[in-house]
């Protein structure tokens, strides 16, 4: 147990040296947020590759109208596990477990997360939850096959009798607890471990977004966990909470699931918004335009997100359409403010088109497409027309692929801080173009297919010339996205310990760039004076210091 002080000024301060175990034992016993964050990152990227491989199989099946690559039953497992792996095991944990774990404490000048052992437990629950869910593929009945949303009564023991469904429920419970513990840790760290002078309105936007994300996690995840316990009880203890036969209400599952599920969209998105904000400011050589506006927009999005769950349930006929439509449309306002501010940050900036910046611009464009089509879906008449068609699939894939672009930007931006080495920029840019173009080629045909009425979750479809070509085009897009992942893997191999980064290779602004790359145990040898949201910039560019909020330049 080490007691850490706020001002370890001297270089190589003795108590900051770590004398713990090494190798495998270090990985099993570490409580260092950076190693835990790295473990999260590696696990999440592995999940991205697994989820991506499942997607490639889906698109290979759909490349022709009467594909025979997989059976109907296997196809059900594929789309269920693809969605589950991507949402539960990649996007969320990558956002609030991986980069947040590594970066947030350093951005606020903290030596570690507030509860380091709880942080380690979060990772082990995430890893074991992921293994539990994937174990379904190795059971006789196969993996879960009722869609990633697990609607009742498809999840009943009659309709989904195998162990795969129970493993899906168990895996979700474990990863749910992992998320809740991470949420507690992030809130406590940000509230209690900020460096002197790091007031709330001097925190970087990434940290702000993670704080709001953590609050949303604490509000939403317990609801899902409660729902899963009820579902398990229905399947094994003879209760009939979601079963009509016993007087239960199947649509209650949808209320519970989406009360978690729609805030989850923002739990996924807000951290990536934060990444893009940091990257766009640094590579435009400007402070964030409308810093406080960005924060209030984030808080507004979070507040509204708890009142929009039933826009996923418009066609059930039992929800209050005007309320959920108005609330959903309102979210476009703070989101629009964010997009305006991102453009404002770039405006007249000295833009450096690094890989991280390209990924962030790609995020902005793709998210705009996903966001605008989301506005259509918030309108009940349009939603009734497009519900459960490929239009919805295209909409949410635009959104999540935008997040993947931002996440890749985050890896290129913060990777050097974490490892001490830069990635190859040429390979990075090649990856970007494949990923960005692939995403659009993948989603655009799906929008058209949806408007033409093609339902989602079909393993085969009628031999209609236009549908065949549009599906084939979408599969080509998926292939391009797959190739982009290969570029990333090759880049890691080619760049391995080749291009030393230095402490601040991007001339970045926030506190994590003040310390060494990689940071020492407990993160800092010394801290600068913090007088704005850009302490490292202020320290490195005293001639261009930031102007504090609420003051005017004389």
């Amino acid at each position, binding site marked *: 147990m080490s007691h850490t002080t706020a001002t370890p000024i001297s270089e190589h301060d003795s108590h900051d040296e770590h004398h713990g175990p090494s190798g495998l034992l270090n990985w099993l016993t570490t409580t260092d947020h950076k190693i835990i964050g790295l473990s999260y990152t590696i696990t999440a990227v592995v999940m991205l590759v697994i989820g991506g491989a499942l997607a490639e199989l889906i698109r290979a099946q759909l490349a022709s109208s009467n594909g025979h690559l997989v059976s109907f039953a296997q196809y059900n497992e594929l789309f269920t596990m693809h969605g589950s792996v991507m949402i539960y095991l990649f996007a969320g944990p990558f956002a609030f477990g991986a980069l947040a774990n590594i970066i947030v404490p350093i951005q606020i000048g903290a*030596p570690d997360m507030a509860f380091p*052992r709880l942080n380690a437990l979060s990772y082990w629950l995430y890893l074991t939850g992921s*293994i539990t869910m994937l174990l379904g593929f190795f059971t006789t009945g196969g993996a879960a096959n009722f869609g990633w949303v697990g609607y009742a009564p498809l999840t009943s023991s009659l309709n989904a009798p195998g162990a795969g469904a*129970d493993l899906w429920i168990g895996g979700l419970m474990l990863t749910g607890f992992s998320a809740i513990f991470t949420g507690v840790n992030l809130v406590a760290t940000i509230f209690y471990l900020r460096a002197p002078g*790091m007031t709330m309105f001097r925190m970087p936007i990434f940290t702000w977004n993670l704080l709001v994300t953590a609050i949303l996690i604490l*509000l939403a995840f317990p609801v899902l966990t409660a729902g899963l316990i009820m579902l398990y009880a229905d399947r094994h203890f003879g209760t009939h909470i979601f079963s009509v036969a016993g007087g239960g209400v199947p649509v209650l599952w949808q209320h519970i699931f989406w009360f978690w599920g729609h805030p989850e969209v923002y739990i996924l998105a807000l951290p990536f918004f934060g990444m893009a904000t940091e990257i766009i400011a640094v590579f435009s050589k400007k402070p964030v335009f409308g810093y406080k506006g960005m924060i209030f927009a984030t*808080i507004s999005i979070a507040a509204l997100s708890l009142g929009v769950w039933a826009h996923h349930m418009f066609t059930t006929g039992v929800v209050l359409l005007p309320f959920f439509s108005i609330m959903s449309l309102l979210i476009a306002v703070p989101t629009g403010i964010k997009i305006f501010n991102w453009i404002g940050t770039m405006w007249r900036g000295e833009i450096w088109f690094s890989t991280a910046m390209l990924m962030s611009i790609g995020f902005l464009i793709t998210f705009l497409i996903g966001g605008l089509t989301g506005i259509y879906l918030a309108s009940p008449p349009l939603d009734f027309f497009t519900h459960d068609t490929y239009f919805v699939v295209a909409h949410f894939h635009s959104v999540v692929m935008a997040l993947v672009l931002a996440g890749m930007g985050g890896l290129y931006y913060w990777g050097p801080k974490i490892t001490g080495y830069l990635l190859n920029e040429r390979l990075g840019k090649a990856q970007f173009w494949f990923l960005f173009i692939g995403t659009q080629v993948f989603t655009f045909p799906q929008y058209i297919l949806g408007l033409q009425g093609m339902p989602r979750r079909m393993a085969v479809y009628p031999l209609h010339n236009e549908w065949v070509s549009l599906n084939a085009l979408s599969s080509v897009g998926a292939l391009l996205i797959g190739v982009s992942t290969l570029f990333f893997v090759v880049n890691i191999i080619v760049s391995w310990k080749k291009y030393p980064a230095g402490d601040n290779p991007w001339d970045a602004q926030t506190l994590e760039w003040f310390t060494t790359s990689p940071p020492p145990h407990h993160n800092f040898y010394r801290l600068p004076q913090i007088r704005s949201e850009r302490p490292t910039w202020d320290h490195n560019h005293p001639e261009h210091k930031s102007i504090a909020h609420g003051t005017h330049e004389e």
Partner: protein
Amino acid sequence: MRVEAKLLLFLGLFFGAMCAVYWTWSLENAGGVMMFSGMLLCFLPGSYYLWWSRRMKMRPEDDPTATTEGGAGVVGSFPGSSIFPFLMGMGAFLVVLALVFGIWFLIPGLALAVWALLGGTAEGRRGGKI
């Protein structure tokens, strides 16, 4: 601490207002209860922080003019390494497997979880390895 308190109280107030509108308009219970619970979850820590912020000295992290020296002293205790989170994670894993594959998984699962709970508590009291 006031900003933190205001953030939570604002969210609580918003959820309360949203709950009132939604429930009186729809009379749908599930959503009403969930929003009401969300409101309470924000009010509980938010009101505590507000109450406490009026009684405490300004912390260096809340002071815009604080210097790094102003925050000198012990920030907190941080365990260097501990095996107990791993053991607890493995215990939880086995307990979940017991829900699927058979009750006998509960024996090693609960044993690991109890060991980790006791060991972790004792380690917290005496201080773990650096």
